[in-house]
């Protein structure tokens, strides 16, 4: 399993990377942690002629929490996300999710930017970003723009990112309340058979003041479940409302048959996982 030949570039700033990307065009690929791209290149399913490695860009590696806003540089690794107590205070769902991604070695290398940007429906962070209502900062030849995570994903491996853009930062508001990321998988290192991200806030009176639900690997994009979320927010969290919310979310999913099982199984498992994830988030709210 040997990749094709390529030229290697290691820019030290975002503008430098963008210039390379513009100059080299279609023949170039940006590499972050490389744990999706390198295996694909080894299978020769991807044969870029130029590889633009972002690891030398220090400004893309940071976690900043201030004034209730969280900013994470795209090159921040899963291990760094897990290790940040500051981030855990601001958004504990990130650590809970990152710990369920791949294995220790992959988490040292795998980055949040790579995870959210490459559009693989199996990746876990995209649904979490939708759940957090995060915004992705994209820099390109025409400057900077931001796209909501809930608007970013178009189809498997197709996103709102233009080929000449680099996803540089993720922003979201620090969250309070209950959280949970529930994932069924075959083993450590596997993608989800079904997974759910849930954030719930409980008011002093026990009502549900905010709810957000998103799902992983149950369609060709992550799924933000707006109706299910607002159902919980409007009706409070009870076994009945959970059942209705789950039923609503299930209307959105379109799982496909694969080695993890047929679609009918995934539909059933997804409902179970979402139910238990909502329950856990509420218990923590």
């Amino acid at each position, binding site marked *: 399993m040997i990749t094709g030949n390529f030229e290697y570039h290691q820019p030290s700033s975002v503008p430098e990377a963008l210039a390379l990307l513009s100059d080299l065009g279609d023949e170039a690929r940006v590499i972050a942690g490389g744990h999706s791209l390198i295996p694909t290149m080894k299978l*020769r399913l991807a044969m870029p002629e130029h590889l633009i490695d972002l690891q030398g860009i220090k400004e893309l590696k940071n976690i900043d929490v201030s004034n209730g806003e969280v900013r994470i540089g795209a090159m921040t690794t899963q291990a760094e996300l897990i290790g940040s107590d500051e981030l855990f205070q601001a958004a504990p769902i990130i650590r809970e999710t990152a710990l369920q991604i791949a294995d220790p070695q992959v988490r040292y290398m795998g980055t949040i930017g790579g995870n959210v940007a490459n559009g693989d429906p199996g990746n876990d962070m995209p649904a979490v970003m939708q759940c957090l209502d995060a915004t992705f900062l994209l820099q390109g030849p025409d400057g900077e723009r931001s796209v909501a995570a809930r608007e970013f994903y178009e189809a498997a491996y197709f996103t709102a990112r233009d080929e000449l853009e680099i996803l540089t930062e993720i922003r979201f508001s620090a969250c309070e309340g209950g959280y949970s990321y529930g994932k069924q998988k075959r083993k450590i290192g596997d993608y989800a058979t079904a997974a759910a991200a849930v954030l719930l806030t409980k008011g002093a009176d026990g009502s549900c003041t905010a709810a957000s639900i998103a799902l992983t690997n149950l369609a060709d994009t992550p799924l933000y479940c707006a109706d299910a979320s607002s159902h919980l927010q409007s009706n409070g969290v009870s076994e009945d409302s959970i059942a209705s919310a789950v039923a609503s979310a299930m209307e959105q999913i379109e799982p496909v048959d694969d080695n993890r099982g047929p679609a009918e199984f995934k539909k059933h498992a997804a409902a179970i996982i979402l139910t238990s994830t909502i329950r856990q988030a509420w218990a923590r709210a």
Partner: protein
Amino acid sequence: MSATAETVQDRKAALKGLGTSRKRVEDARFTQGKGNYVDDIKLPDMLFGDFVRSQHAHARVISIDTSAAMALPGVVAVLTAADLEPLNLHWMPTLAGDKQMVLADGKVLFQGQEVAFVIAEDRYIAADAVDLVQVKYEELPVLVDPFKAELPDAPILREDIADAKEGAHGARRHPNHIFTWEQGDKPGTEAILSEAPVVAEEMVYYHRTHPCPMETCGSVASMDKVNGKLTLWGTFQAPHVVRTVASLLSGIAEHNIRVVSPDIGGGFGNKVGVYPGYVCSIVASIVTGKPVKWVEDRMENLSSTAFARDYWMNGKIAATEDGKILGLWCHTTADHGAFDACADPTKYPAGFMNICTGSYDIPTAYLAVDGIYTNKAPGGVAYRCSFRVTEAAYFIERMIEVLAIKLNMDAAELRAKNFIRKEQFPYQSALGWEYDSGDYHTAWNKALEAVGYKELREEQAKQVEEFKAGNTRKLMGIGLCHFTEIVGAGPVKNCDILGMGMFDSCEIRIHPTGSALARLGTISQGQGHATTFAQILATEIGISADDITIEEGDTDTAPYGLGTYGSRSTPVAGAATAMAGRKIRAKAQMIAAYLLEVHDNDIEWEVDRFVVKGAPERFKTMKEIAFASYTQAIPGVEPGLEAVSYYDPPNMTYPFGAYICVMDIDVDTGVSDVRKFYALDDCGTRINPMIIEGQVHGGLTEALAIAMGQEIAYDELGNIKTGTLMDFFIPTSWETPNYQTDFTETPSPHHPIGAKGVGESPNVGGVPAFSNAINDAFRAFGLTHTHMPHDHWRVWKTANKLGLHG
């Protein structure tokens, strides 16, 4: 008196012989990264070979254009079948009496089949060149279902033998049919089935899987044209057989071939056979005059070398109403893929599948196995198993459960009622084996007691009630298994591979200063032979195991042997070691008698020395005797102290065990969790308890993998669906439970030290235990049998079919 006794004990302990949990001598190099595996071999000017493989499962090869590849700088040659044909190496014999294409000869028969072999200066250039070889195919209809192989519209796969009415194992009834193998009493069994009060019937499928050792297969061939010598390093579980095969294939005289198995990163049956990569590396070295390395990658390993199992076992078991088994019938459809590339002894085309009467006294039985060709990878190897014993054990241990359900009887009680009793050994089975020894009831009762079987059943019944009441979504399964293995192939009168009798060997040299070197015909792949064989010898010759070096795997130095697989090392080579040790001792006795100036019969062996009877102060230690053998002229005795033994075992050995697994199963997600696993093994005399326990842990984990998810699956076009470790299930430390091990010790009566072999028992017994736990969990809801692997979705589907999802 007590002081003397203590001294004897101390001396015995110092030997680190039989029964000692001696630390492994191999580990110093392995823990420091200083193992020497085949891919670590680096020779001057070494080239690298890589395969162009077929993406189609069945296609005619119209043309192969190698010009673009040849034009790439660094490419030395590209071999195709046309290049091998003049050497008659485009096909090769399999160990099962069939033949296999080395490189595609006119057509391809499975996805991943070897089509051309690129030889280049390094593995990077070779990979680039592989992409540049243009192969034109004409796709043909694909056969993946063995039950459709003989339908009128089935494509004919093996055109080379389409008209052959006779195969290596008798008559063939169809071009896609390989053999029919029958054992036992067909009319007798059918008569019992028609008359018996109770008959249970089930189709038991043991799915296709793969040994998947951590190290893939590979070789380095180096043809020294000056001296006419070929050296071949490789991942060989049977290096001496490889040498013989290489000689027969290449025409190079056997004394001019040296085969070396360096350290091997796990074998589990994957490394018994001869693969096209080995042959191509040899040819490439002969053609180029340079050393050539070939190492497959993981996808190549899973998709082309050595699958295992794929047995459809249709069973019928007859019994009285109170559960006494009267007869057993089994018809197996064996999917061999494109070539029958099993590595079974010649007379056993379905291996030892006829051990399928298991641990039970079954008076009448019949077994038939039909081998079938399909468009899948070739093989049918024994994956951590003695030639289809895993399939046999799974079959009978499922059939017992199915019968228990039919009888509405407790499955533990049904087993106990039908076990071969201790006093029946040696026991003649209905399918032709003589079980050497056993004490099944003792082991079984110990196991049931250890897990608190009665209480577990009570808890399970309560849980069923809770489930029915809607208070839980989890069920509890109790997986029982009592297996009997047949290992240590085997007696030369019955067992050969390519005509080579399945003896094994040991050669011992005692050095003047009293340390020793022993060489064997086997080869360790992690079993710790350098540790355990030294222990056998230490006890036999009274030299500390620490002073004995064990060497294996170099055919220029080691005595001929059939290698390591089928748990045969301890039963056969271990016996040869003991016997060679006894020859040393016999000569030592003569020398000692001379030195002590007494008659041979006046001295006796005591731990590490010969002592004059009645005069314990007069003795000669083995060390002194060894020195004397090199330094003194002893009348009537040749100088030196060496011995060789080639051991032809009189019978197989029959290790057995009682395993119990307790599993908790989530009915909604299909996720299962092993709560407890108890494994009692009886492998006869225990050489090194630490290593035995390690073997059991490892074998059980492989069993867990197979039972719970590990499979080689194909789609209807013959595309492999599980070709990487993402989808081919190997549990990590996280999914693997802790195991509780235990033992009884029933020595083999015919083995020199009573040992039986253990490496494969946990895989043989583990799979039915895990599978029975899953099946058992649903018994209360009407399930009789559900197929492996029991991954999440299949367990869910089972529950779904039973209506457990409301």
